[in-house]
């Protein structure tokens, strides 16, 4: 590549990168960020986005330049120069993507490991997915955790122990990590709160788990994201994040009369 085309390709690339960056910034992509985990996920998201914008700009610039510049003129029957390859360039476009891939792998793995940590003083909530509603169960202090990592829900009978407070909405205290243990009654469901950037399937006969550390008080949608039958689209609930004191008040109130329908 001579200097002329190189400069022009770079100019086109910068233009395209600017356009793509504008799309990334001005389109409201990610929903509100309401958990510590979301912060780490968003960092990976923007890290990967930046790399992708770079790759996109370079590839698109070369394409645009080539497609415009090297169009055949009418009645030109000649062939292009018989270039069969270029070992140097081929090594570059093997090794550079490899380095970028490794960078993305490292960033992703670190974020994943941090998001998977289970702090010692976490709150425990058990989740039962069923057609077509969620049940959130809060074990009493000191309740024994059974062999399936569950204290409230019996995985075989799928009954919920009386001593557990249950709620159709997920109630969480702000600023404290909660470990969610999920299982399902008949088919697979998936627990998803976009503002927490967290999703986990609830599988019948299994116990799966995620950690949520809410950072913002509020009322967020809980969405089922695994096709679970006719009511799948309607299988929604709410995640209500309150102050620790308010959460404790709610938790001590008896099930069923605790204002679950109001925020």
């Amino acid at each position, binding site marked *: 590549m001579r200097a002329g085309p190189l400069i022009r390709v770079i100019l086109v690339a910068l233009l395209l990168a600017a356009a793509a960056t504008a799309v990334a910034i001005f389109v409201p992509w990610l929903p509100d960020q309401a958990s510590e985990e979301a912060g780490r*996920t968003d960092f990976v998201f923007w890290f990967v986005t930046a*790399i992708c914008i770079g790759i996109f700009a370079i590839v698109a610039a070369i394409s645009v330049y080539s497609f415009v510049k090297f169009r*055949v003129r009418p009645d030109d029957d000649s062939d292009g120069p018989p270039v069969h*390859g270029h070992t140097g360039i081929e090594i570059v476009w093997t090794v550079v993507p490899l380095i970028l891939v490794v960078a993305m792998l490292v960033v992703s793995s670190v974020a994943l490991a941090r998001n998977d940590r289970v702090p010692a003083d976490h709150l425990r909530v058990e989740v039962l997915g069923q057609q077509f509603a969620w049940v959130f169960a809060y074990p009493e202090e000191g309740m024994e955790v059974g062999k399936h990592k569950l204290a409230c829900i019996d995985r075989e009978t799928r009954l919920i122990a009386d001593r557990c407070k249950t709620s159709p909405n997920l109630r969480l205290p702000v600023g404290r990590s909660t470990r969610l243990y999920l299982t399902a009654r008949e088919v697979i469901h998936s627990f998803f709160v976009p503002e927490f950037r967290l999703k986990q399937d609830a599988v019948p006969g299994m116990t799966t788990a995620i950690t949520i550390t809410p950072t913002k008080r509020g009322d967020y949608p809980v969405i089922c994201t695994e096709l679970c039958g006719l009511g799948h689209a309607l299988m929604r609930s709410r995640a209500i994040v309150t102050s620790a004191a308010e959460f404790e008040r709610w938790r001590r109130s008896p099930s069923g009369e605790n204002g679950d329908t109001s925020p």
Partner: protein
Amino acid sequence: MAPGWLRAAWMTALFFGIGFGLVAGIRAFAGWDPAIDWEPIITVAALTMAPIGFLSGLGAFDYWLGWAFGAPTRPDDHSGHGARSWSDYFRINTDHKVIGIQYVTTTIVFFLVGGMLAMLVRAELARPEANFVDPQTYNELFTAHAALMIFLFVIPAFAGLANYVLPIMIGAPDMAFPRLNALSYWLLPIAGIMMLASFFFPGFGAGWTNYAPLAVEQPFGNVFFSMAVQWAGASSIATALNFLVTIITMRAPGMTFWRMPLLVWANFTTSLLVVIATPFIAGSQFFVMFDKVMHTNFFDFAEGGYPLGYQHIFWFYSHPAVYIMMLPGFGIASEVISAMSRKPIFGYRLMALSLMAILILGFSVWAHHMFVAGMAPWLRVPMMVTTLLIAVPTGIKVFSWLATTWEGRINFATPMLWAVGFVSMFVIGGLSGIFLGAVPIVIHTSDTYFVVAHIHYVLLGGSLFTIFAGIYYWFPKMTGRMYNETLGKVHFWLSFLAFNATFFPMHIIGVQGMPRRVYTYDPQFGNWNLFITISSFVLGASFIIFVYNMIVSWRSGKPAPSNPWRALTLEWQVSSPPPLFNFDEIPQVVGNPYEYGVPGARHAILSGERAPTGEAETVQR
């Protein structure tokens, strides 16, 4: 009685009767009540026996059965070879060129049906509320859409195009097993009709992924999918074996592996993928069907079954299936881009090797579909590593295609528009794939519209665009007539713009948190969905232009020369359409297939030509 449609009709009925008698007889004998239970009868008699009767009636097994029973047979019996009239396309035909056209036209019919289903899905989604179909019908619409597009369009359409051109490209008179080839084709309509028939027996509404236990809980119609996959899968496997043997044993003298066109390389790797992976989806659907019909408990957790087991088996096929649906398109793109740029493929060997790298890596990434499924958490990291590593060989291919166009003499005829359209859309699909490979991000994006956007950039902007590139590129060869160039370009630009308007916004609503496979959704996504629906209708309408162009051009297009693109590969060195056995005499291959611009270079010498004398020769045009 002679093989044909009449015999097929009564043999279908006869075999249905045998299946009926078998089930009813066994049930009566065992004292089960009722003896005539329609669910097992349909499973055995209609979905298993009747197709065998149909194929026997058409004559798919006549030669083999005759041989087995000692009737006189001739291995080189060509009585069913070639097409002299249109009716020869509606019988068992052993000519790979006829079979190729049978494949392509049949798959386009299923593409149009699948597209129609997508239009209905989009109509329901135009507004946030539930509008005009009930939830079960909605689930069946998107399920059948995906199943038809994957199993009866993309995979067999590639098999059909390759069926036509691959034997000619390697200088062979036909495929290695012409009778098996005929059988492979006739399995397809059976699978397609079975999938569509599921609408009359509701129940095929668990998504094309058909996850257990939901699939087992579905109404009876789900069995139609499980069996249709068996017939389509058998077709795929038979064709892949045929390609492998053809490529390995029937290359013309001088056609070494390193002289094969990249389309042949692509189908070689694809066939390996098909042969190794397809039995897994067959297994997954058998197990689901057994759970459903016979109350086995492979996936019934209450009886010790393992629901995630289904997903592991399913994706062990269905991830490689992504490459089964991509690699042949890579091959087509390589042929078109090189010929239309008048330049050799840049980095030919690395192009072939990266296909092999994708083949191997492709088998080690299946669980990236299960990052939130609840599998062993540690497994997510190695799966992420292999998944992102595939970006490297894929990137090599994209860069090499672009380098091939660099300083070329690019002719933007319709096939080239589709080929470069594919490259650019595939770049976007590849980049969005990274967001579905990096675990922290995919925990947020999985099962949202982001995934829907990604698969359509890869399978529509990718596979479909290369299928169109292939159809337009080889249309003159297949039909002996030119298509209408203006209509071809209008088709491309309309599809290209409408495609992006339809699917790009899905990235946005996906990241914002709209789940997939829902008929009603949060009103905040209403405006985007309305826009997407309108765009999708334009996209759907653009294919009317394609169908019109194909039909009219086939009937009355201007006669095509043998080599309208001045390409060097062998299929362009014979007449359009080629003679009955492709070559008067097997050609002698003497060089590489993409030597554009190399003075005196030859790919092959055909009979009747003098041997090259070196520098005096010019590139064959």
